[in-house]
């Protein structure tokens, strides 16, 4: 198999496997295991098959362009280090799969488990094999996500949920830091390619952004590897099923942080900052983790803190910056993976067989499960650094490195003591793990009767423990070449010669080991009394409950702070929003004016016309009056608005815009009727009772609004004046004037623009009208009036009472009398207005008028009948289907536009010509007229629909009110 295919296969196999695992039925436990196991084994095989090449120093590469624009290639890159790591991932992955077969309950939904596990394996391999830093981050984030899902596998369990979320939050923060760090590396190096980045070490270290990059990358690594102060998520992740813990939290996921440190070691390590930060974090984690591990009552908790401690150890080693330390780090990565995975599995077996992981309740299990106990003891001994086991070797190398002098600071000098102390702690907790659970009197009151697990469940542990032993006894023959291959990939030519041997003679490190062993045993027996009291955690630990602390910070930041900030920075009320809108627009417009000078003050281009001035005096009075009255005197405001509208309309006439005047006027009329129709549904408001005024203060809000209004008015006036007093610019208008008749076939230039030059605008505009009409109709169909406006208006009630009180009158005769004459006239006007509408429609192209004006006129003709005769009366006689009018109007206008296609012209291309009709003579024929007809139909339909839909509410609610009355009457009768 060519290497590139092989590399892809290594990544793809688990991912594809994950997909198929997800599809299996919920109880297909064995099938899942077969699938997952096969995948893991295949991957292992593939990885091992590359060993000869890798061992010879070759770097296998697959490079596929993915996002070449931004330097992101899909690049897989297998060197010695990646080989070692990927091997670890797949081998332990296989063992965990096997173990999980027996660990998971038949009732557990295994497809999800194995699917996630395989996906995780794929993501891990993706990180490890990444040859592009962005791709590395890509898979890195994926591992965070999948670990979240795996920790939360038993999501009905609150601890699992919280642990998962905490893990995700912490590692996601780290992941984002890493992303930024990597982006900065790209910025510095000019590439995200790992090879290029590793080669650019000196450039990076010399760059002014080195420190930020370093900190960001380290944040990514430390959060992932649970380094102090980000260690707290790992113990909380122990709510995951044990196979997950064994896999993620010993061998793989948490190793990614140190993997990254090692991977970027050539590019980043070796500076003072690196040493200071990495070593101090490493040593704190090492000590803190080990110390806290002693006091855990949960087997898995103990292992979690121990893992933290060991990761601290590896971090520390990588921080030292010496090649030998790097060798030790890589070696310990392997060793820790083997013994910690086996210990997790052992803890899981105990949990599985006894129903608890609480060291306080476990005791004397050796009698029930001697084989497991023996295996666990060997693994724990490896963890404690007992000679002849692999842990001893790497720990000795570690001790030796701490003794070396690196940069000569206090920290450097203090390291041996710290290391020894950590050794003492680790012996103590290892002893506690073994002694607390396997020795002592037989356990009482366990949920289950303990016994040995099935053999195949123990098999992974046996294999791993065997590895511990072999490596521990004959390292040079077994692990040395692999280690060398891995380390060479990191250190390259500077790889030191190292000698893996059990016995180096009586050295300082050996002394440290002895002190650690003896001290650890002593410490354990001193602490036994305290531990037996059953307190979870070290003395005074109740003061700092990291999980609670984390939760509270999260809630405070992400919820309480966010909510109060949202209220400060935003609002859900309309008034402030509008105020901001107006204010922002004011500021936006003011900035260029203020920056470049106003240039506004020029004399008017024409003299002040006293008549127009008086007319505008009227208009201004109306505008101000409307603003003043709109709250308490709605009708008055409406009337004044009408006045302002009239003045606007007169202005249009004055300033040569007859079409505008016509349209404005008609719209004015329809709007007035519309608002009047709405007025009936608004609440009564009496002057003096102001629901919006706050007691005893002239509202500063009103003052602010007043200033805003004045500024907005002034601003708009200023802009208008500035433009109007400037000479006109070279405008597109001349084209319209020149071509309106010759090419547009009409003399009314405005109308020709509307239906021809810019007919598309009109097309859109009528569609808007149609849409609004439909919306209004839809909304009103479900209209529900407020309780206090359901009643028939007071006037009508009085008049009805009057009619009922007089014997010779019947209900409604008052209104009939009042409307008798007006309705006769209104009816008579119906055909007149229709003819008028047709007139306006037909002449539009040449004179003021047009489809819209005609349509409104027609609509008013209808409305007038409704006003005069009432809804029922009209609808008994006229059947108007306004929605059809709208649809028809759209169709006509659209079809007129589309007709041009048949003449191979663009949409809306017009045709204007003359038709010779006998007797009558030449008749102008313009497609624009057909278009205007569409406009007309639509406007009629829309306007009538809106008005009538609103008018119908009255009779609907009258009906309802009457029905309610009848109900009360009948119920009263029943009561009697």
């Amino acid at each position, binding site marked *: 198999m060519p290497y590139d295919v092989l590399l892809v296969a290594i990544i793809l196999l688990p991912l594809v496997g994950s997909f198929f695992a997800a599809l299996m039925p919920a109880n297909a436990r064995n099938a899942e295991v077969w699938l997952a196991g096969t995948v893991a084994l295949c991957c292992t095989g593939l990885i091992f098959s590359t060993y000869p090449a890798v061992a010879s120093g070759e770097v296998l590469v697959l490079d596929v362009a993915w996002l070449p624009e931004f330097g992101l290639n899909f690049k897989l890159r297998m060197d010695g280090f990646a080989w070692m790591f990927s091997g670890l991932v797949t081998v332990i992955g296989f063992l965990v799969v096997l173990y999980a077969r027996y660990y998971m309950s038949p009732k557990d939904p295994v497809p999800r488990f194995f699917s996630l596990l395989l996906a995780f394996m794929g993501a891990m391999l993706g990180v490890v094999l990444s040859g592009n830093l962005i791709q590395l981050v890509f898979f890195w984030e994926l591992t965070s996500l999948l670990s979240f899902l795996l920790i939360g596998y038993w999501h009905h369990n609150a601890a699992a949920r919280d642990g998962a979320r905490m893990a995700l939050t912490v590692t996601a923060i780290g992941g984002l830091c890493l992303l930024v760090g990597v982006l900065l590396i790209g910025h510095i190096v000019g590439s995200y390619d790992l090879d290029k980045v590793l080669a650019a070490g000196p450039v990076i270290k010399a760059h002014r952004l080195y420190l930020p990059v370093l900190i960001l990358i380290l944040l990514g690594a430390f959060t992932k590897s649970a380094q102090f102060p980000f260690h707290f998520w790992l113990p909380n992740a122990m709510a995951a099923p044990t196979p997950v813990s064994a896999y993620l939290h010993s061998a793989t996921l948490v190793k990614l942080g140190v993997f990254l440190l090692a991977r970027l070691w050539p590019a980043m390590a070796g500076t003072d900052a690196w040493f200071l930060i990495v070593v101090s974090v490493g040593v704190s984690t090492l000590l803190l983790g080990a110390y806290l591990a002693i006091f855990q009552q949960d087997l898995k908790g103990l292992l979690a803190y121990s893992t933290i401690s060991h990761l601290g150890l590896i971090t520390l080693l990588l921080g030292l910056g010496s090649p030998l330390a790097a060798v030790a780090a890589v070696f310990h990565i392997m060793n820790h993976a083997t013994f910690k995975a086996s210990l997790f599995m052992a803890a899981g077996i105990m949990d599985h067989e006894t129903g608890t992981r609480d060291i306080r309740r476990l005791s004397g299990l050796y009698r029930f499960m001697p084989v497991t106990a023996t295996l666990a003891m060997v693994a724990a001994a490896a963890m404690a650094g007992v000679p002849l086991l692999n842990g001893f070797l790497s720990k000795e190398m570690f001790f030796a490195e701490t003794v070396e002098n690196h940069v000569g600071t206090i920290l450097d000098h203090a390291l041996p003591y710290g290391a020894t102390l950590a050794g003492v702690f680790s012996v103590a907790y290892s002893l506690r793990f073994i002694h607390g659970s396997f020795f002592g009197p037989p356990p009482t009151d366990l949920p289950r009767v303990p016994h040995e697990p099935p053999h195949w469940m123990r098999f992974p542990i046996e294999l791993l423990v065997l590895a511990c032993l072999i490596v521990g006894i004959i390292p040079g023959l077994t692990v040395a070449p692999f280690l060398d291959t891995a380390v060479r990939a990191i250190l390259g030519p500077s790889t030191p010669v190292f000698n893996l041997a059990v016995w180096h003679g009586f050295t300082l490190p050996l002394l440290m080991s002895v002190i650690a062993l003896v001290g650890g045993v002593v410490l354990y027996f001193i602490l036994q009394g305290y531990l037996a009291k059953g307190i979870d955690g070290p003395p005074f630990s109740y003061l700092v409950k990291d999980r609670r602390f984390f939760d509270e910070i999260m809630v405070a930041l992400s919820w309480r702070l966010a909510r109060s900030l949202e209220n400060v920075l935003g609002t859900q009320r309309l008034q402030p929003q509008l105020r901001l809108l107006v204010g922002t627009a004011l500021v936006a417009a003011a900035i260029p004016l203020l920056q470049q000078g106003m240039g506004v003050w020029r004399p008017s281009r024409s003299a002040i016309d006293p008549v127009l001035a008086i007319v505008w005096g009227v208009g201004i009075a109306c505008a101000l009056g409307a603003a003043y009255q709109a709250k308490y005197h709605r009708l008055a405001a409406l009337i004044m*608005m009408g006045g302002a509208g009239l003045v606007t309309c007169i202005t249009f006439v004055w300033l040569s815009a007859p079409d505008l005047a016509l349209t404005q006027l008609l719209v004015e009329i329809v709007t007035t009727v519309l608002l009047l129709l709405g007025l009936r549904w608004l609440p009564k408001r009496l002057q003096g009772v102001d629901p919006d005024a706050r007691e005893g203060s002239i509202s500063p809000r009103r003052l602010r609004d007043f200033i805003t209004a004045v500024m907005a008015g002034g601003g708009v006036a200023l802009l208008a004046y500035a433009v109007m007093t400037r000479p006109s610019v070279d405008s597109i208008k001349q084209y319209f004037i020149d071509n309106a008749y010759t090419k547009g076939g009409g003399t009314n230039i405005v109308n020709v623009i509307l239906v021809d030059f810019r007919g598309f605008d009109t097309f859109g505009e009528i569609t808007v009208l149609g849409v609004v009409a439909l919306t209004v109709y839809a909304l009103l169909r479900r209209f529900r009036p407020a309780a206090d406006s359901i009643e028939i208006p007071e006037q009508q009630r009085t008049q009805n009472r009057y009619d009922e009180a007089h014997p010779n009158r019947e209900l409604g005769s008052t209104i009939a009398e009042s409307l008798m004459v007006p309705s006769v006239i209104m009816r008579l006007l119906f055909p007149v207005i229709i003819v008028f509408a047709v007139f306006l429609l037909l002449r539009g192209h040449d004179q003021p008028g047009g489809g819209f004006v005609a349509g409104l006129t027609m609509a008013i003709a209808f409305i007038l009948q409704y006003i005069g005769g009432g809804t029922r009366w009209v609808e008994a006689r006229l059947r108007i289907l306004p929605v059809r009018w709208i649809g028809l109007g759209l169709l006509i206008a659209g079809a007129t536009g589309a007709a041009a296609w048949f003449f191979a012209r663009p949409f809306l291309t017009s045709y204007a010509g003359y038709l010779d009709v006998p007797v009558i003579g030449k008749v102008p024929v313009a497609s624009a007229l057909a278009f205007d007809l569409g406009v007309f139909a639509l406007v009629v339909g829309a306007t009538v629909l809106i008005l009538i839909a609103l008018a119908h509410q009255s009779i609907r609610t009258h009906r309802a009110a009457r029905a309610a009355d009848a109900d009360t009457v009948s119920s009263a009768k029943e009561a009697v």
Partner: protein
Amino acid sequence: MELIIAIGIGTLTGSGVWLLLRPRTFQVIIGLSLISYAVNLFIFGMGRLRTGAPPILHNEVVDATARYVDPVPQALVLTAIVIGFAMTALFLVVLLASRGLTGTDHVDGREPRR
């Protein structure tokens, strides 16, 4: 003349904005209407003002000497009027629906807390 129109536009805008910022829906709709008058006049003014020069051709020939007012803003205003009308209608119905469903005519659909 420009001055009068500018002051008129300003007053309409100012009154409209004042109403726009008021708490009652009816005030807002009147405000929007006043603003739309102002905007229409503003657009219209952008073609510069001219008396007695309506954009209607005489005798069906373009008289090069005749100076017509700029027809483009007029066409724009016509479109704006129509759309403004539609929107006023819509806003009215929505405010009525809001009044019906919430029982109040406050713009936020609830009476302000005291």
